[in-house]
Structures are given as C-alpha cells and as structure tokens.
C-alpha cells in the first residue's frame, strides 16, 4: 500500500470513528476519537478539514436521506462543535497559533439568517492555526453588527460563510457593506455554488471551496478594495424589473393562497394534522423563498436545483415528488405578469419532471 493510500485509509477510519460517536451524541467518545487521531500523527489542520468537516458533511447527507432524525442531526453537530472546542484547547493548536505573532487580523462570520455555523467555525480554527488573529462572530450575524465590528477592529479581511442559497440576498448586502468600509471580502460555503459562481456574481473579492483553500487564499494578498458604496442593482441590473421585490414582499400572501387552493385540489389535506399543515405551509414558503432567490440572482437553475433536491428529500421520506406540481402550478398562476418568474417556474417544472423520470426509470 502506498503512503497516500495508507494515509487516506487512516483518515477514513478516524472519520468513521468520529461519525459513530457524533451520531450517537457521545461527546466523550467523539473527543477521544479526535485526540487519538492527533496522537497517531494526523496534523491538526488535516484533522479539522479532512475528518471533522467530512463528518459534518455526512450529517447533512444522512439527514437528507432520512437515515437520521432532526434531533440526531443537531446532536451530532453539537458534538462536532464540542470536538472543535476541545481541539482548540489542545497544546498543538496553541503552539501553532503562537508561531506567527502579528500576522494580521481576520473576521469570520456567517451571513445574517445563516444558522449553519460549523463551516465558519472550522475556518476560524484553521486560520488560528496559521497564525492569524481571528474574530469569530458565529452564526447568523446581523449585517449592522458585522459592520460595527469592522469599524471597531479594522481587520485585514472578512471571511463570510453561507450554506443556504436563500441567504444570498443577505450575503450580497453584507458583501457590499463590508467592501464599503474598504475591507476585502472572501466568501465560502455551499450557497455560493460548487464553482463559486454566485460569489463572482455578488462581487466578492475572493471565493474558496473549503477552509484550506480559504486559508491559502488569505495567505496570499487579497486585492486592496477601494471603498465605494454601491446598490444591489449595480451588480445585478435585472433587479430593476422589481420581480424579486414584489415576490418577496407578497410571499406570505402567496403561501396563503397556495395553501387554500391546495386544500381544494388535494383531498388528503383535509385529514392533515395542524403540524402537517404547518410543515406543508413551510415547504411552500421554502419554494417561494428559493424562487425569489433565483429571481435575485437571475438564475433559473438555482430554483430547478432546489426542486430536484427537495424531490429527493420527499422521496426519501416516502412522499412522491409529484406533490410539488400543484403547488408550482398555483404559484405560477399568481405570477403570470412576471416574465422572469414565469420562465423560472417553467424551467423548474421541466427539471422536476426529469428528476421524476430518472427516479422512476430504473424501476
């Protein structure tokens, strides 16, 4: 076996150990697994990025596949957080963080409304390991708080994390606000697309696919930013058509309309419990939210991708994805005056049908 293969094999073993402990909600076993990996010579950065981050990614996948419950998902995340906290106190971390004093200062934060705090937390730890002075502001940081922090501390750069695409309009506001203070912005997280396309669209100064790449990017010089305030339409001229604004502002009316119409079209809904009804309303609100985001970015594929994903989630829970069609039809019937929304919905329905026939195909 080659060294590389051996190393990957070992990492897989540590990842499995940590995964087992995390999903069992066993903090002690999880911390033991992480410390054992360190004792066996796995370096701290690798442990964070190739073990802890992978376990966290698996938490999301397993939840999507309905193999773990929401409670397990949250517990596993909490255990991972505790593992990171324990590793942060480990002498190996403190020695590394001491190695380069006066390196510079970075603010790490999640976009307003973004609750997935772990990716940012991992980045904060990796940057500390590389000798940066890091201010980690945590999950869902209101943009005014973030800006107040920048004024107070004047960091060299801001690293912004967002996992959920619907936070991209908020991310855009945060990026422009940070840049208006003359602070360059690096963004990362699943929301910005696998290739970082939305990072470019929203005018971020840099994008990184993971914590290690982000740290590498920050090791090089970020472009100096000439502070300049700009409007969202400066980056996204299509917003002039007001479709995003109108859909967002009428979102709850749209959801109410779809709900009441659905009850007439889908007879089973009469038997729904209050909780089921609420979950349905939340699912529809999600649809509208993603539709609005697709309009914000002028990218119908974002909405199509979300529907395909949601179809997978529903199928994993024994709900046929076809339930999405009447909801989409009802939304479309209220937005006929909006050409971009209409085109986005048409694109999404085609994507959904393709996903359905793929799912039905092999059977």
């Amino acid at each position: 076996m080659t060294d590389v293969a051996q190393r990957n094999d070992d990492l897989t073993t540590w990842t499995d150990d940590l995964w087992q402990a995390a999903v069992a909600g066993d903090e002690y076993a999880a911390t033991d697994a992480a410390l054992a990996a360190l004792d066996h010579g796995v370096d701290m950065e690798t442990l964070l990025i190739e073990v802890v981050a992978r376990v966290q990614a698996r938490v999301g996948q397993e939840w999507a596949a309905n193999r773990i419950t929401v409670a397990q998902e949250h517990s596993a995340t909490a255990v991972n957080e505790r593992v990171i906290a324990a590793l942060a106190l480990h002498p190996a971390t403190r020695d590394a963080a001491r190695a380069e004093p006066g390196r510079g200062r970075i603010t790490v934060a999640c976009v307003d409304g973004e609750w997935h705090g772990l990716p940012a937390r991992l980045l904060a730890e990796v940057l500390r390991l590389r000798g940066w002075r890091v201010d980690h502001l945590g999950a869902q940081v209101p943009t005014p708080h973030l800006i107040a922090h920048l004024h107070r501390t004047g960091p060299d750069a801001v690293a912004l994390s967002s996992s959920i695409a619907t936070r991209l309009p908020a991310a855009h506001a945060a990026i422009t606000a940070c840049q208006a203070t003359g602070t360059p912005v690096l963004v990362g997280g699943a929301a910005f697309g696998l290739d970082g396309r939305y990072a470019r669209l929203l005018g971020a100064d840099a994008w990184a696919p993971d914590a290690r790449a982000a740290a590498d990017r920050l090791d090089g010089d970020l472009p100096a930013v000439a502070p300049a305030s700009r409007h969202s339409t400066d980056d996204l001229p299509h917003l002039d058509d007001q479709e995003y604004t109108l859909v967002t502002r009428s979102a709850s009316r749209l959801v109410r309309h779809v709900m009441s119409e659905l009850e007439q079209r889908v007879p089973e809904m009469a038997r729904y419990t209050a909780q089921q009804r609420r979950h349905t309303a939340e699912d529809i609100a999600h649809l509208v939210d993603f539709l609005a985001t697709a309009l914000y970015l002028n990218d119908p594929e974002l909405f199509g991708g979300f529907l395909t994903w949601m179809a997978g989630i529903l199928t994993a829970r024994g709900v046929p994805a076809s339930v999405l069609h009447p909801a989409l039809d009802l939304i479309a019937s209220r937005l006929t005056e909006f050409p971009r929304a209409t085109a986005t919905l048409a694109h999404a329905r085609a994507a959904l049908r393709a996903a359905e026939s793929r799912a039905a195909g092999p059977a």
Partner: protein
Amino acid sequence: MAGLTSGLGREATDAMWRAAPHPVLVADADGVIEQLNEPARLILPQAAPGVALAAVAPAWLVEEAGCVPVRGPIGDRVFEARPVRDDDHDGVVWWLTERTDDERVAEALRVERERTAFLVDASNELLASLNLDRCTEVVARLATRYLADAALVILPLAGRRYPVAYCGPDGRVVREQLAVDPHEVPGLAEALQGFPPMPSRWIDPAAAPGWLAREGLGELGSMVVTALPGHGVSAGALVLLRRSGHAGFSEGEEVAARLFSARAGAAMSAARLYAEQASITETLMRELLPPRTRHLDGVELAARYRPSGLSERVGGDFYDLHPAPEEGGESLIVLGDVCGKGLEAAVLTGKIRNTLQALLPMADDHHRVLELLNGALLSGDRSLFVTLVLASARRVGTRVSLRLTSAGHPPPLIVRADGRVEAARTGGTLIGMLETITSTTDTVLLDPGETCVLYTDGITEARGGPLGDEMFGERRLREELAQCAGMPPEALAERVQMLASQWAGDGDHDDMAVIAITAARPARTTGQERQIP
C-alpha cells in the same frame, strides 16, 4: 476663391479681409507671405510680404499643410489658425482667431474638475471607515496620491508619543508611535493646536527633521503643514512633502489641501467619536454578557441570546449563573426580561444583577429573594419592572434536582427522555411594580439527558411564519421541543433560537433568550474510570 472672385474683383475681396478684425495672412505655394493685414502684423511683427512664413510664425502653424484648423501659442496668447486653400494661385490664406480666454477657462475647468474628482474620491474613502487607524491611513494615502510625493498624518499626543501615519512615494503606509517634538517643524505645533495654516512659502523644507524627510523621498523641495480640524478640537495635522524636482505648492493647491484636510479632520473625529461610543457599548455588553461556564457539577448549561432591533445591541434580556459555592451545593441560574432596552435597560439590569448577587445566601428561599429584589426596585424608578425565572440546580446522584420559580415569566418547559414536554408548575407576579408579590416554586427532577428550558417571551411572541402573521406560540414551541428529546443543551437551545428566528424571518422581533439546563449523561466508562465500581 473661385466663387467669391467670380462676383467681386480681387481688389474687393482683398479689401474685405484686410478690414477683418482677425489676423489674416496669405502665403504662396512655397510658404512665402504674399500679403497680411494689420492684426496679423501686430501679433507677428516680423511678418511682411516676401518673408518666409516659417521664419516668423511658430512651428505649429507652419507645419500644418492640410486644411484642418490648428491651435497653439503665439507669445503669451493662444490662437486658432484655419488654413483656406486658394486654388486660383495655389496658396493658403490663414485666418487666425484668438483663443486665449477659452484656453484659460478650459484649463481652469480641468483643474477644478480634477480637484472636485479628488474631493469626491476623498469623501468616499474617508466616509467609508469609522475605524480611526484605517481612516488615518486613508488620509495619508490620499494626500500622497493627489497632493504630494509623501504625506504624514500626526495625531494629538497619546500618552508620551504621537500616533503617526506616513505614506511614501511608493504608496505604502507605515503607522508608528513617535516620541518627537512637533516644534522641530515650523507650523506643526500650531497646526496640532488648530491654529490657521502657515503659508508654505514661510516654511523652509531644509528644516524638516529625519522623521519627516525620510529615506526614499530624496531632497525635499517644498512642504505644507495643515491642521486637521476636528469637532471642536484638533484631530491632528497633515504634512505634505514634495521633492525638489516637483513644483512648489500653488495657491490653488494649498486651497485644495485645506479643503481636503477639513474633510479628513471631520472623518477622523467621527471615527474617534465612534470608537469611544463603541467602547462604551462594549463595556456595557461585557458586563451583560453571560458567563461562559457550561459544566457545573453534573449539570450542563447552554444559552443563546439574540437581541432585537438591528442597531440595538444592548437588549432587555439578561441571564446570570452563580455556581454552587461548594461541591454538592446548589447553583443559581437566572433569566430575566427587563422592560425597555438600551442604556436604561442596561442600568436596571446591572442593578438587578448586583442585588441578586448580594441575595445569593438566601437563594434557598426563592420567594424571599424575589421579595427583597422587589423592595430594592420599588425604591427606584417605578416605571421599570422585570420578569424573572430563578432556577436552583443541584446534582442528586446521576439526576439533577431543580427548584424553579417564575415571577411574571413564562414557566420553564421540561423535555423528558421520551419526548414528553411538561410546563413547570410555577407562577408569580412580576417584580418592581407592586408592594407585595406572590410566587410559587416547583421542584423538578431531571434524569440524565433530560433538559429544562428557560426562555423569554421574545421566543413565543415571535410573529411571522409561512403565512406571515402568526405568533410562534407556546404550543408550537412544545411541539418542537418534543422532537428534541436527548439533545445536548447547546443543540437544543440553538434549535429553539433558530426556529423562532426563522419564524420571525426578516420581520421585527423582541429580544430572544433561551437557556437549556441538562442533567449530564455520565461519561462512558473508559480507562481508569473503569476501575471504579
């Protein structure tokens, strides 16, 4: 001139241009002047018939062989010359028009536009940051880019040194703390005190000390010292430095420098003021921030807090933790919601926390503590009150015993291992309004992994949801908590906070605080612990 001569005789046309108010010269095909009028003679005194145009006119005019108008200086005036081909005798008639005033206006406009563009740029950059260090750097950099070869910003004395930002010709800014004497530089001490600027011609650049005339700048040619006027006091001073090759500062440039320094001073003052305000808020926040301990004896704790209003950072919710003074003792956890927010709420919160701290020895009697706190608050401003929940936690074997008392606060919810959610049977009047108060205390036992959730009404009263106008409500909270059985306290507190925040969406909400108190699960028996039976 075929068209003209066909109607009029040559003499008549000659007479016309001779009388023209503009200089006119007629040259033949070889460039020799044939004729010229009086105005032409006045501006080109050596010009005369028979003389080569090249010998008397400036090169810019002579070299032009086409038919396009050209423009250039003659003496200290500027002329535009239009060549008109005369096909009859294969020569050129030059019509000249004076453009001196145009040029002057255009030049003035260019300078003015440049200055305006610079001031707009400067305002943009200066307004961008409320961070004093960054603002100072921007001032030095802008001054170097537009006004000088190097610039130095010096702030009023801080301790024993002067904070200084220097930007050299390479555009790089260095920040330092210098122990220097501003009297070494003519006009600097005065500028730092806010006196009017000294004209640059009064300042001898040779007098500049080494910390001003730095390496890489070369021989100093001229220097301007300007005050940076702040809000009532001087924000510092700006020194502009030019190399000896570079022209000195014109009057217009000194004006631009003064306009710039006025903006720079205002921006630096605003940044200083902001820093002071921010540090006051930060001090208050630090006081109000809950302690970070999460492990008490056998009890795990997690708290999440989200202030309302985007700009309001000192909210009305607070919580506090008083660990047991001795092993096996009771720890006190307090969650409160003060009416109002901002500074006033912060002051009241401080008072409540101090009073509770003093009342700790009586914590075995919650009602007594609340009575005394009520008395203390009644002595102050009657319009302020607080709702509270007190939780005293003690480990009993592997379980945790909790005494819970609510004073006008939503009762705590208990999340059992099997997913049942129970409300603690406690209630009471709020504190700080009435002469006498009532309260009932409930005692609850938590098995390992079970959690007691304290929350403020910002959670249940969050308005929004998918339909837009519903309250989150206690029922929904209980339904959600039923899914949270066995979760670690951080995960549980975060989930509650997340659900309520997402419920509220981008709408307004009150402060939201959640505390989860969980009976710790015993560590798996590993290593040495295994030897203990």
